[in-house]
């Protein structure tokens, strides 16, 4: 069954909100890793450098998630307005077919309603395209996250006494990146489903 676009848009906003929370967790992980790397000294210089990348990545993801969130919430609102305009338009068309004594007097309101419907559906198309582009962008972040996760694993292995702790952090980064990827792909799947 086709899903109303306002439901989809709201669901996408929810997915991106989750992604943002994960990214916030990632930023915290980066902070902990940096503290640890500072204490560990020279053996973890590589790891410490990586934490800056993680930090940057986390704030990129947060910024982007918030942006997509805003876009999808706006989209959901527009879709509700469009649904209302569509509902009214359907009723008006039904009235139009009846040749009522004063049916003609509805003409202006009908035109406004049809124009609004047209305008809203264009905005909606534009918004959906924007969402698609943004989700694609999000995938780039995920690829970066995977690279960082791999490098942190490598760095962790040469960190001597701190190896175990850094490995936990590296695993944490991998897991978080996976979570975010999942939210993004759910969002994309939602966007690609059949809509009314």
């Amino acid at each position: 069954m086709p899903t109303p676009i306002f439901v989809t848009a709201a669901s996408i906003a929810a997915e991106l909100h989750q992604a943002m929370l994960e990214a916030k967790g990632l930023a915290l992980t980066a902070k902990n890793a940096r503290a640890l790397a500072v204490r560990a000294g020279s053996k973890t210089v590589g790891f410490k450098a990586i934490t800056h990348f993680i930090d940057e990545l986390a704030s990129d993801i947060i910024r982007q998630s918030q942006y997509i969130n805003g876009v999808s919430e706006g989209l959901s609102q527009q879709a509700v307005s469009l649904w209302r305009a569509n509902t009214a338009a359907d009723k008006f068309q039904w009235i139009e077919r009846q040749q009522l004594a004063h049916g003609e007097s509805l003409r202006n309101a009908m035109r406004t309603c049809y124009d609004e419907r047209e305008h809203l559906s264009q905005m909606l198309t534009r918004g959906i395209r924007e969402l698609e582009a943004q989700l694609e962008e999000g995938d780039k972040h995920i690829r970066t996250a995977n690279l960082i996760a791999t490098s942190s694993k490598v760095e962790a292995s040469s960190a001597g006494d701190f190896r175990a702790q850094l490995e936990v952090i590296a695993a944490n980064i991998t897991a978080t990146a996976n979570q975010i990827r999942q939210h993004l792909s759910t969002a994309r799947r939602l966007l690609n489903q059949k809509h009314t």
Partner: protein
Amino acid sequence: MQANIIYEDGDHRWIMFGRDPNKSDGIIDTNQYMIQSGDQAMLLDPGGIELFAPMLSAVLKFVPTDQITHLFASHQDPDIISSLGLWDQALPNAKLYSPWLWESFIRHFGMERIQYCPIPDEGLTLGLGRIQVQFIPAHYLHSSGNFHVYDPKAKILMSGDVGAALEGTDAPLFVDNMAAHTPKMRKFHQRWMPSNEAKLDWVRRVRQLDVNVMAPQHGRLFQKQHVTEFLNWFEELPVGIAIR
């Protein structure tokens, strides 16, 4: 949607819409009214979202949209005014008269173009075309902010949920026998109406009006002799029973 002209004198008219045979099951049958005078008309309790299309169609048989200048919502219930978001698209220049108490609630039905004109607690007299109509306070009957509409020229009182009876769409337009009709009203009034004090205040108020027809939002209408009988019956009826 059926339309019945219940009063006509020149261009001054009361039309009752309702008894819709195509209404979906499970929604309460409602009476909508339109008062027309000169080049202005007011829809009283225009109804739920489900009724919008049949109502608009029925109304446009009598007046063009630019003459539907006023809407009235006696209170905030969905069967009264949940169609507002669609009327808003059809009548962008109309004014909605409704209790001040409910403005921020009724706006939830969607209202971008229509203007909300809050009725103060004590009521209001409004010019409509060549006549004057009065918004009569009926607070707590059943809604805590609630008005009825009295037209002193036509001598019609639109009484909202007061006098309501739950009946089928094939019920006659007017009450013919009070003894047979009161059982159809008792439960509704006892449960929906919360305050005996408010009830007595309203009965006192309405006894001072000259009412030829009392027109409720559900069920049959009352002619003069039955209005008197109704007031006596309602006066004696204990209401607000759910807490006992």
